[in-house]
């Protein structure tokens, strides 16, 4: 992943510069939000922001992911909507007088490459309505579902599509692989 974007050193430097710039921006903003407008707080803030930026680059150095901002803005409403549906679904099943559960296991092979994207995908499965990621072995995800009558596969494929779009990939047609 990311090997194709490192064809020349100048683009590699540009990408590194962009990553540093965005991290500095985000962490400075966070410091400002946490510490308030007192200028003296930057005495500690500047070293903290620099340290966190360095740590973040060091910890994430193995995955040179290129996050697409537009996809992030598309992911957030999708995520919120699915979380709301998941919450309402659980509320309905928990408070109903009848027994509405028909749990079972579903096995899914993900097309996402190993690393941050796959981990985000597995964590988000637990927030979709009626599904919970029970096990991850390589690209095999074992999913526990509350109701086997639900369209589990369709939901998960949609989530996978959205996560892939975050890093500028597409899951494409599953049959072609």
């Amino acid at each position: 992943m990311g090997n194709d974007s490192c064809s020349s050193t100048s683009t590699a430097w540009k990408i590194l510069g962009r990553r540093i710039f965005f991290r500095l921006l985000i962490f400075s903003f966070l410091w400002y939000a946490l510490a308030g407008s007192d200028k003296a707080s930057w005495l500690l803030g500047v070293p903290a922001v620099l340290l966190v930026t360095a740590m973040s680059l060091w910890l994430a150095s193995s995955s040179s992911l290129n996050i697409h901002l537009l996809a992030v803005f598309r992911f957030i409403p999708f995520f919120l909507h699915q979380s709301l549906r998941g919450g309402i679904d659980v509320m309905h099943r928990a408070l109903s007088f009848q027994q509405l559960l028909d749990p079972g296991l579903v096995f899914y092979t993900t097309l996402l490459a190993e690393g941050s994207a796959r981990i985000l995908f597995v964590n988000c499965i637990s927030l979709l309505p009626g599904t919970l990621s029970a096990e991850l072995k390589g690209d095999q995800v074992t999913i526990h579902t509350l109701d086997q009558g639900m369209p589990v596969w369709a939901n998960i494929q949609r989530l996978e599509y959205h996560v892939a779009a975050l890093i500028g990939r597409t899951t494409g047609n599953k049959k072609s692989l």
Partner: protein
Amino acid sequence: MTILYHSGTFFIGIGLLFFLSGTVGLIRFPDIYTRLHALTKADNIGLGFVVCGLSLQSGNWAVIVKLLLIWLLVLIASSASCHLIASSGMEKKIKPWTRP
């Protein structure tokens, strides 16, 4: 101001309903996996509504950023720990409850 305050109270009330249903699910659901469903989903969205309500009442952007940050961190922690509990359940060969 009062409209913001009262709509905030409304959102917090909805959030508490989700927390309540998550707890009812935790008690009523039959096994470890289904209980995890109840806890993670209901509590995440419940906390989301509480954060929304408090943000409407706070009237200060720094407080809102802090609240959203808390929500994000709780989302990450709860979905990761949910996955870890479920996978250790699978490792211990705990059979999921199925409909008789």
